[in-house]
């Protein structure tokens, strides 16, 4: 009698285990080896407590269906709206022990303020470190890596395809309305550090066929953000201006000494971009590119 029950139980749990394994295998295989700027790491099981200390990567994780596993984010994460309810951690003054205390099974970082990756590694917490993307391909690669690490490979693939299509659609809609136009992209209205075409935003806007006036400025340390001066910008006479610093608009730009002489200001082609969307390289780059295309004009 006892033997029969035991046998039945074994059979039951065996069947359950097989089913579970099959389901997971269809989604993703663990353990999985993934590589980032923190080196190659092995993740043994599908993470259930992800601390994603970067607004961009929180957006990516939610977009690939891994949002349920994300429980903590950095202070700036505000999208999607669910991100408001996450445990907030100051990722720039990171106290590594505090992170360990939250017991995450995966940590995602964009900045290591000093040995954080090594410390998490030392206590056996898998960590991904993604530098700021400098190309759209970087963004795709990070999405794919997050997909593998979180067990959402297929969704990650779909998201990348969606972004590719979305960007292509904007480019097609604009046609050649942007080609040959010269633009100034403002991220810093005080000292005019400006992204050139080697940056993520530079490459993204390059898709619209425009030229970046910051490319003519020297950038000897290859930071991608040469410092311009007001004189340089006025002299370059951009056709289009994008404002991504917050607090500025066409009126404030026109009110600056000498700026009203610029073609972009005279023609009113000054576009205010959403600061958060403009500073992240996640799924909302489609919105960013569309907003930029609308600023150029000529969209149907």
């Amino acid at each position, binding site marked *: 009698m006892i033997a029969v029950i035991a046998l039945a139980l074994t059979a039951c749990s065996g069947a359950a285990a097989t089913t579970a394994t099959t389901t997971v295998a269809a989604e993703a295989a663990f353990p999985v080896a993934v590589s980032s700027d923190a080196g190659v790491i092995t993740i043994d099981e599908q993470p259930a407590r992800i601390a994603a200390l970067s607004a961009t990567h929180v957006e990516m994780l939610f977009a690939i269906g891994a949002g349920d596993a994300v429980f903590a984010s950095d202070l700036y994460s505000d999208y999607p709206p669910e991100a408001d309810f996450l445990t907030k951690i100051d990722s720039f003054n990171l*106290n590594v*022990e505090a992170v360990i*205390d939250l017991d995450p099974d995966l940590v995602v970082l964009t900045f290591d*303020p*000093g*040995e954080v990756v090594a410390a998490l590694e030392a206590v056996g917490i898998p960590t991904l470190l993604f530098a700021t993307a400098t190309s759209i391909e970087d963004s795709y690669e990070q999405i794919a890596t997050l997909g593998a690490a979180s067990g959402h490979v297929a969704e990650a693939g779909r998201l990348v395809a969606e972004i590719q299509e979305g960007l292509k659609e904007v480019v097609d809609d604009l046609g050649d309305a942007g080609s040959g136009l010269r633009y100034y992209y403002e991220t810093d209205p005080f000292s005019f550090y400006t992204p050139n075409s080697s940056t993520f935003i530079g490459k993204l806007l390059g898709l619209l066929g425009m030229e970046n006036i910051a490319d003519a400025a020297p950038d000897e*340390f290859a930071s991608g953000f040469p410092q311009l001066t007001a004189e340089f910008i006025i002299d370059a006479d951009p056709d289009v201006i994008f404002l991504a610093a917050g607090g500025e608009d066409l009126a404030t730009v026109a009110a600056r000494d000498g700026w009203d002489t610029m073609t972009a200001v005279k023609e009113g082609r000054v576009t205010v971009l959403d600061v958060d969307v403009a500073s992240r390289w996640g799924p909302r780059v489609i919105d960013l590119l569309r907003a930029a295309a609308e600023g150029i004009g000529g969209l149907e």
Partner: protein
Amino acid sequence: MTTPLRHSALHSGPLLTAVAALGLVALAGVGFGAVSLPLGGVTRELLDHIPGITLDSGLGERQAAILWELRLPRVVLAGFVGGTLAVAGAAYQGVFRNPLADPYLLGVAGGAGLGATIAIAAGASSTGVLPIAAFAGGMVAVVITYALGGVGARRSANSLILAGVAVAAFFAAMQTYVQQRSSDTVREVFTWILGRLATVGWGEVMAIVPFFAVMAIVLVVHRRHLDVLAVGEEEAATLGVHVPRVRIIIVLAATLGTAAAVSVSGLIGFVGIIVPHMLRLVVGPSYRRLVVLSMLTGGAFLIGADLLARTVIAPAELPIGVVTAFVGAPFFAVVLHMGRMQT
């Protein structure tokens, strides 16, 4: 300056107090943090590693990893860095007979800052190249200071201080230039400049220990010379002390230690000023006691400051330089007010 002899004699009281304080603060530093480790377990775990003693600490695997890989190296590093800065500050104050002298007087900070900034701008990570670049920059700056200030010649210590000011300003300007031209590195550079004791494993500790040892031995050996120098250069010379030689030996030793401290922990201000002055208020101005006490108390002070830095705004962390300056600046004002600044 005319300290009675009995005051200069080595009493064991202050020494024992300093050792006890260092031990207690270190235990607190190991025990407290964002993750709380049971103090009893920590003590047993530490004792367990002494040969011949076997104890079950009751710490989990992750707790043990936090203790051995994160917490303990950090506390030990803070101890060495604090001790180095404090005793180097005391030595500088004695050699230059200037109560405001700090370990960064001869341009170490400016040079190390430039070295670190260039390394960061060139894409070096926080470990590896950065400390070496900082150390090299610091030593280059001090060598230039010596060349300009002419130590070998019988010139006054003031010419060396002024050369240090010029070199520090020049290196700071170059550092600002590199930082300006490479704006994406600003955050990392500031993290470094404000000082940090974040460490994993024992690499940094191993890096500073040899320099600390050399500096400590030289300063302990020359502690009586520091007392003689404090009386005045002429007087020291008449007492048979070869002033320029003794001065360069002491300054080099203190600088070597400081450069090593800066390279592993960035710029941590005020320790080199407040710790020696605090001790002078308590035990008097004699370097016979001040040298050893500065090392112990400086270590305890920085371990304590670091404990504050990582617990006050947990789960975030204050830069250690902010804590030492926050405590240091008011203290400095009080000392000034009491008018008891002694060299």
